[in-house]
């Protein structure tokens, strides 16, 4: 729980969810500070995706609350920009028009939406691909376009659900380094789901470890490593120690 005076952007307060005959969330509680990058890891099938759907307002919890800036946002989609595992770029839209989809859905004119998204293309390494179609992009570019579509909506919290899961390891490392840099410049508040412990440590200020289903928070580990993070950091003793700690918690719990 946050201490008094501790700034909180997002607070998950005792979230519980039971599907018929299948308890999934057993009182999940943690918080995220403004501009903080928090990763959620846990054994597969523990309910991470359900937790994300509940936070994103796509599903309602049976009990518990989601608070954003102190206001009840349970079941609300507006405070969150959600990036699913697949890039879900639509082949009938150009790359630029894919990135503006959220703005158009929100009622912005196509022209205004394009003017808002276009300046971000250079930062996202997509310069010159505005009028290309998604099938002309590499895997890494597709993910960056999907992330651009997510952040351009200018929501309070970014929810990233294993955004790099489908990429090869080299592209994945590049994307992680790039994401760390760009996030630092924009100051986004990010909640990331991942299977990849190394990815979680590399990107996060804090890692939340969930237990097996029905899930709750097992451990929160602060990653006190300098930023911007460099790929060489992975081989440092501090990095290895944190990785080891997370691995131990996960292994004990899944036994």
């Amino acid at each position, binding site marked *: 729980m946050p201490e008094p005076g501790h700034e909180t952007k997002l607070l998950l307060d005792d979230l519980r969810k039971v599907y018929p005959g299948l308890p999934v969330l057993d009182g999940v509680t943690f918080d995220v500070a403004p501009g903080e990058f928090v990763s959620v890891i846990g054994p597969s099938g523990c309910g991470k995706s359900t937790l994300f*759907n509940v936070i*994103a*307002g*796509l599903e309602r919890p049976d009990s518990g609350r989601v608070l954003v800036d102190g206001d009840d946002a349970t079941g609300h*989609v*507006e405070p*969150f*920009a*959600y990036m*699913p*595992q*697949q890039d*879900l770029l*639509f*082949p*009938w839209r150009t790359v630029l028009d894919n990135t503006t*989809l*959220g703005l*158009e*859905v*929100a009622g912005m004119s196509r022209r205004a939406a394009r003017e808002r998204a276009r300046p971000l293309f250079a930062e996202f390494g997509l310069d010159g691909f505005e009028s290309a*179609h998604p*099938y*002309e992009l590499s895997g890494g570019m597709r993910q960056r376009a999907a992330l651009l579509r997510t952040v351009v*909506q200018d929501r309070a919290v970014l929810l990233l659900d294993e955004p790099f899961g489908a990429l090869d390891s080299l592209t994945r490392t590049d994307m992680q380094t790039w994401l760390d840099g760009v996030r630092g410049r924009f100051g986004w508040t990010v909640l990331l789901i991942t299977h990849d412990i190394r990815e979680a440590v590399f990107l996060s200020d804090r890692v939340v470890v969930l237990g097996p289903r029905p899930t709750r928070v097992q451990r929160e580990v602060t990653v006190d490593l300098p930023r911007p993070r460099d790929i060489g950091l992975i081989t440092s003793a501090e990095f290895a120690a944190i990785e080891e700690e997370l691995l131990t918690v996960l292994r004990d719990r899944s036994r």
Partner: protein
Amino acid sequence: MSVRRTGGLRTVSAVVPSLVLVALGLVAWQWYVTAADVRPQILPSPLRVATQGWAFREQLWANTLPTLQVTAVGFGVSLALGWALAVAVDFSPWLRRALTPLLVASQTLPIIAIAPLLIIWFGFGLLPKVLVIALVTFFPIAVGLIEGFAATDRQATNLLRSMGASRWKQFRYVRLPGAMPSFFTALRIGITYAVTGAIFAEYVGATAGLGIFMSLQKNSFRTDLVLAAVVVTALLSVTLFVLTYLVQRLVIPWHGKERRRA
């Protein structure tokens, strides 16, 4: 430009085997009719079908136009109905449950028995023929669309919902464009059924059209002219079929390109 040319070449080389097979069949047929001295009332030679068909070209053409018109109107009605129904079903789970069994039932109707009744009820005009065509083609179109809408990725729906999209906006931005490839497949199935349906409806009773032309020529043992009309019908179907690809390329240019990449 070069892409288009290789695409055209590929289409040509794709039909070559069929053309060879057809040519071989025609040669065998011609040879058999000549060798066995079959009476043309029973089986005319392909050459005779061609020459007589050419001699009667004006009559054939005069009967092709009404068939084409009936096909167009009937298929148009079918498209309008299919779209309206599919969209309604996509928005209402209740309608989906209510209409799916009826849709399937409409396909079990024996058209061969219903068509003469439609003529009795509605006369020799356009209406009964349009009804026959609609009855035959409406099912593949409605089902193609309904399944196309429903095939929308769950994650895509979630993405749209997270953006705050209403059901209508989910439909407009994702379900509708996503269903277009499936729609064009259904359209191709439907259009071939439509021509056959038109011929059949005319065969039962009409004042003009390829169907009634075949029926009359059969009654006067002009087997060669029946077969000539069959050839015209086949050409008509193939033309309409090819046309759907052209329309598809205009409406969803992204589809073919995407598939070739993948």
